[in-house]
């Protein structure tokens, strides 16, 4: 079961987790990304490439399902403006066993960061700037190919 969504509204983490637990699996892993207050950041704004974004999230889930024994895979990503402390992205994986759920969850968020067409702006008291892609994020995503 694959579920991807790009949405402005926040998400109900408990409901998303329960939906995958309902399949009667042995393990569910989740990752939530949250707006961080680095260097006075007060809000962020995300834009994306409608159509390509959803397709790329589905591709990432397909790749994870081919690699690990998953009974469910959910990626929800918000777009628009979000304030400090608000959730940005939710990844949920379900599997008979914990190793597959945990590894696939890490794979999905690592790949999302380098493959899915989202762009993030940071707002501070006196200005706004586009976030640069971090080489560490690229290295983390690449290590799954090793």
């Amino acid at each position, binding site marked *: 079961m694959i579920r991807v969504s790009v949405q402005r509204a926040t998400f109900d983490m408990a409901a998303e987790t329960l939906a995958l637990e309902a399949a009667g699996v042995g393990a569910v892993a989740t990752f939530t990304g949250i707006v961080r207050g680095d260097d006075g950041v007060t809000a962020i704004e995300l834009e994306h490439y409608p159509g390509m974004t959803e397709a790329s999230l589905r591709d990432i889930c397909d790749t994870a399902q081919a690699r690990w024994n998953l009974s469910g895979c959910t990626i929800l990503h918000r777009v628009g403006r979000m304030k400090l402390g608000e959730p940005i992205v939710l990844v949920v994986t379900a599997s008979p066993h914990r190793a597959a759920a945990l590894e696939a969850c890490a794979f999905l968020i690592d790949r999302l*960061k*380098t493959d899915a067409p*989202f762009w993030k*702006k940071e707002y501070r008291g006196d200005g706004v700037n586009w976030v*640069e892609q971090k080489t560490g994020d690229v290295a983390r995503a690449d290590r799954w190919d090793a």
Partner: protein
Amino acid sequence: MKLVYFARVREALGRDDEEMEFPASVLTVGDAIDWLAAQSPRHAEAFADRSKLRFALDQRMAKPDAAIAGAAEFAIFPPVTGG
């Protein structure tokens, strides 16, 4: 061909998209960027740092050496920063 722009590239060009007919000599994504950069000072500035550009042809990621023939939509944007 429809060109679509996102994030910093969109802001640098002051537009979301535009229609462009490339000459026959433009075969690849990289050729297209070279040709576009010569169209106006604004294009030249937006495409000045090639290391900060990524591309998609018909909504699939594409490398600079990818052939553009047959594509209907060509997207140009900075490296992605979601999550």
